[in-house]
């Protein structure tokens, strides 16, 4: 029962957050400087009025907002002013690229991050440990756009010069083109996961039930695999929500650097081009996506780890 009311409460907050975001986005769009119709050629006042009427920009603010909300509730995010295509279609076309990139990066970061963290914790205070920590600290300190450019330089330019072959740096066709963007995007997350895994693994390894397992004569690999790891990766689940946000903003730059036709690149472009409806639509889409991701992670965590109190507020990331 407590779980059910907790879930309902969280869904309520999520809905409020989305509404708040929509109001905010809508108001922002009204305050934006510039005019989407001011292009290279001068437009007469009559044409301008007609354009305003076509996109509903001549109506009073509250009416525009109601229309916007109504359309949104019917799943319509409006028409992109620059591309003259429905924002829904653009998102549907480009988001799969971003999602694929994000999921690849997430899986990679989770596997290697947990692996690194476990190795560092088991071989505590050895060369392995310091190497893993150094890698983790460097990973946290290098922004993904610099990582992307460095990877391009190293694996495309330098490798070609040294070994006669290199990895492709542009586009999203074929496995080879996907390696570098995934690496660039996942490095920071991998480092965070590794640090967290190491801390929680060290905590778990000091628990009494590990001593019991050792006293029973289990081998080290059995202890780690069956008893320690399961408990140690629990806290890692909590950062999946914030990680979704990190990866998502990471796609903005990584897609621009590697020229991947994903939604992140579209978003950055539409900001530069003052494409009101596109920005509003994409922001709301991203907002809902992230709110949903956090919600799912928080609820899942309640099932995975029954020890946490569901009545408490969300955990610190």
């Amino acid at each position, binding site marked *: 029962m407590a779980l059910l009311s907790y879930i309902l409460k969280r869904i309520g907050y999520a809905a409020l*957050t989305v509404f*708040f975001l929509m109001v905010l986005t809508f108001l922002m769009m009204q*305050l934006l400087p510039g005019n989407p119709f001011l292009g290279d050629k001068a437009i007469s006042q009559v044409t301008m009025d007609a354009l305003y009427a076509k996109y509903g920009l001549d109506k009073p603010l509250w009416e525009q907002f109601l229309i916007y909300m109504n359309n949104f509730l019917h799943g319509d995010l409006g028409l992109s002013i620059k591309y003259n295509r429905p924002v829904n279609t653009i998102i549907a076309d480009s988001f799969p690229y971003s999602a694929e990139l994000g999921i690849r990066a997430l899986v990679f970061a989770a596997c290697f991050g947990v692996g690194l963290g476990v190795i560092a914790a088991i071989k505590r205070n050895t060369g392995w440990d310091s190497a893993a920590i150094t890698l983790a600290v460097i990973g946290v300190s*290098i922004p993904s756009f610099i990582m992307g450019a460095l990877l391009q*330089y190293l694996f495309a330019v330098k490798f070609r010069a040294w070994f006669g072959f290199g990895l492709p740096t542009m586009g999203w066709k074929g496995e080879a083109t996907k390696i570098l963007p995934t690496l660039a995007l996942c490095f920071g997350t991998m480092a965070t996961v590794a640090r967290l895994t190491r801390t929680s693994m060290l905590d778990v390894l000091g628990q009494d039930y590990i001593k019991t397992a050792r006293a029973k004569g289990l081998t080290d690999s059995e202890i780690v695999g069956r008893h320690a790891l399961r408990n140690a990766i629990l806290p890692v689940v909590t950062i999946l929500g914030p990680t979704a946000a990190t990866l998502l903003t990471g796609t903005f730059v990584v897609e621009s650097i590697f020229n991947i036709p994903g939604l992140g690149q579209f978003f950055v472009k539409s900001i530069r081009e003052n494409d009101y409806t596109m920005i509003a639509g994409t922001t709301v889409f991203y907002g809902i996506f992230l709110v949903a991701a956090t919600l799912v992670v928080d609820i899942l965590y309640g099932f995975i780890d029954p020890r946490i109190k569901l009545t408490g507020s*969300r955990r610190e990331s």
Partner: protein
Amino acid sequence: MSMSKAKNAAKAAFEPEKLLPIDCDLSAEDFAHVGPDAERRDEIVRPSISYWRDAMRRLKENKVAVACMIFLVVLILFALIVPLVSPYTMSEQHLQHPNEPMFFRAEDGHMHIFGTDDLGRDLFMRLWLGTRTSLYIAVSVVVINLLIGVIYGALAGYFGGWIDNIMMRFIEIIIGIPYLIIVILLSMIMKSGVTSLIIAYAIVGWVGSARLTRGQVLSLRTQEFIIAAHALGSSPWRLIGSHIVPNLLSVLIVNLTLAIPSAIFTEAFLSYIGLGVPLPHPSLGNLAQEGTLRFMFYPQQLLLPAIVISLTMLSFNMLGDGLRDALDPRLRT
């Protein structure tokens, strides 16, 4: 064996008859038992070590944190001094010398230590001015966020009850939105520039420190010294200002140090996607963005700002970890 021998010797040495010269007039009656001195007894011989001095001592033992601190001081000095003494200005173009390598010497005898960019602007000057801009933005953002967050969180935690409930519900709602998306929206409607970047970040960035402060205040509130101060009639402002905030300081300092790298990252990210510091004014993000355009041919133009960004973030992170260990020994792992 040797111990008991030494004891016997000492006993023998203290026999007054043997110690005093034969012709001495002193006798046992000339001495009186003084008893303990009431004043001297309470005197503390060693200087007491304050909490901050103790923390400093622990911090000094942490070699990595000290190295990071020294690096940051040197970095700040360079960022402050180089733009003042450089023979070039930030936008001065030497079109006859574009994209020159490091340590390039022009005909007029001036050296471009880090070379020039595609417009022939001196990169040494631009890099340090950019570092100054980025640090200025990061530090102001973090300080403003901290002030707002501490006031908000302290009020919510102190008053509790329905006030706390409403204030926290508000935070619950806005924390769901990633701050970077709001910063992007805000920096679009404001005229791009350093000030609007700071304002945009400050509007959304205080939530974390507000939650942190509230949690700390809630746990402090029930402690005896707060109840005592309350019983003695302290006003809420006095309670918050002179009892709660000083106890929060260590947590907040660590939070501040660890928030700076993320602020540097945000500035670099926004400048990179074209919403940050407007050109030609340099910032670390701008320089990195310009560097990526040409790094295939002139890698130093990207590597230099990249190294500064990464080392600065690294140092603040390590210093923050060190400070946390030093300020709160209970948390040490």
